């Protein structure tokens, strides 16, 4: 009976700890989101979307940072996506099971979680140091390097889900392999491919570290990709560490905008992905 009691006690303690850790972990995450919403919404106004980042001590908005972030994210995704989709296509369609695919998958998975600041250093070495100045395009390239592994991974996974019979049926009609891939496999996996791209957008839109020494920052409005360009994360970094109240409040608002954008993107990606999978 004593043994039975002690086993029951251990069970209660163990499971209690699991419940406690769930409450503890989720509690912190909820606190962070609540603070973010509270602080961010209190600074949210129309001016945030229509005015430039202000000098210390005066009011302003985040327009140049938002535009800069949009430009670099779009450019980065446009550069990285085709490369990622093509590489994923090779792995799922042509080189299925080959040694090269195995190596590329392994390296890609490592790139997927490699420190993004190192990517920034790489692009600095390759582009900024050669060109002699910071530029928006260098920032976009750095983001593209981060986009590629995300897209490669989802493209391969999604193409592997496409049933082989579809491809066989198309091939039996005499279609060449490239048409089978582009007209049949891509279409069947379309929702999944879009999910991958959306996830990549969500991933890069909050990236700060690789932009710090590629695109740098810019206090003024600039759509010139050859000049330093402002971005939301870089502005948040600068403003949050400043002693000025207005700057700090803008940093919170910027953080809220990024988080909401990322959450919306991930939710849309998830809905699309689950719809594609259930079809």
């Amino acid at each position, binding site marked *: 009976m004593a043994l039975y009691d002690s086993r029951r006690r251990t069970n209660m303690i163990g499971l209690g700890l*699991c419940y406690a850790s769930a409450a503890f972990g989720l509690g912190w995450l909820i606190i962070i989101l609540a603070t973010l919403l509270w602080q961010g919404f209190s600074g949210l106004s129309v001016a945030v979307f229509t005015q430039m980042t202000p000098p210390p001590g005066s009011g302003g908005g985040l327009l140049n940072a938002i535009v800069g972030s949009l430009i670099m994210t779009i450019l980065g995704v446009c550069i990285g996506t085709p490369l990622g989709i093509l590489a994923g296509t090779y792995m799922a369609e042509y080189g299925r099971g080959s040694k090269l695919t195995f190596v590329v998958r392994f*390296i890609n998975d490592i790139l997927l*979680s490699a420190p993004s600041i190192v990517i920034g250093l790489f692009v600095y070495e390759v582009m900024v140091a050669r060109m002699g100045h910071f530029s928006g395009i260098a920032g976009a390239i750095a983001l593209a390097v981060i986009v590629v592994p995300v897209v490669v991974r989802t493209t391969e996974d999604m193409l592997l889900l496409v049933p082989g019979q579809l491809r066989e049926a198309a091939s039996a009609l005499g279609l060449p392999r490239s048409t089978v891939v582009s007209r049949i496999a891509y279409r069947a996996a379309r929702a999944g491919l879009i999910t991958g791209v959306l996830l990549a957008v969500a991933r890069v839109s909050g990236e700060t570290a690789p932009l710090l020494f590629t695109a740098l920052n810019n206090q003024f409005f600039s759509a010139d990709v050859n000049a330093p360009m402002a971005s939301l994360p870089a502005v948040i970094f600068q403003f949050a560490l400043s002693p000025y109240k207005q700057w700090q409040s803008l940093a919170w608002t910027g*953080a809220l905008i990024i988080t909401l954008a990322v959450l919306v993107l991930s939710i849309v990606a998830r809905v699309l992905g689950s719809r594609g999978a259930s079809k």
Partner: protein
Amino acid sequence: MADVAVESGQVAYKDAARRARVASSFKLRDTSFRWLTLAAAIAVLIILGGVIASLIQGSIPAFQAFGFGFLTMQVWNPVTDRYGALAPVYGTVVTSLIAMLIAVPVGLGIAIFLSELCPDVLRRPIGIAIELLAGIPSIIYGIWGLFVFAPFLQQYVQPALIGLFGHVPVLSTLFAGPPYGIGMLTAGFILAIMVLPFITAISRDVFNTVPQLLKEAGYGGGCTTWEVVRFIVIPYTRVGILGGVMLGLGRALGETMAVTFVIGNAHKISASLLAPATTISAVIANEFTEAVSDLYTSALIELGLILFVITFFVLAVARFMLMRLEHQAGR
């Protein structure tokens, strides 16, 4: 009659020629597409090679100046142009260890909760919430740490820690000094909150690979829920859990923004966990654009190389373990 035959022969000939043309255009498109995708796949390898090569090239001046002493020197002085990596490496390792000490048990606890204890209605929402949280940019954790968590620690927790452990022999050195709020403990805690969703999501997926049959056999044999978890689920998924933990460690080691805000940026090694310190990524983020001399820049790039090599190995081990698990599951 003969005319018709000749004509149809011509038609057949024309048809065949057209077919050959179409077939050859198909063939051209096929081969070019195939080569294009192959080139893209190889480009992924080239990116990794490029990252390593450029980092090595950039760190040559620093390596020539300091040699392997770079790894063991603690001095970091831009004025005299002498740099050593010991303090940032130490800070990176200690903050990541603190993060793992907190995040691994809590993450596993949440994963057990999700896979064994949670009511079915809540399982999906909580699972999705955790996956969404894994996507939140790290700068959010950083700004929260700076404005909310560090002041809270400074006011309430750290004085209590100093008071509580001030007279205990070993712990008094770990929790010594004035409560700054920012420092290694704070950074480690923020990192823990940040990697928590990763570890939870992977361990939950791994736990779900345990065959229902094994668990039912355990329950049938009279095991309690805890005993099933402890003696069946965890042993069965050991390799996968370790892979997930290593993946989280890789994230924690390379994390920049969440740490830079709260680490304090002090190039020194102190025994106290409450003291400000620095990590590799924080040094690079803070000082790279201000580095004026070539040697300074090169030293920072060499730091980046060290970080990349460390995370590369950690992530490679993680992937290897997760792959072994997939292999096992596929069998």
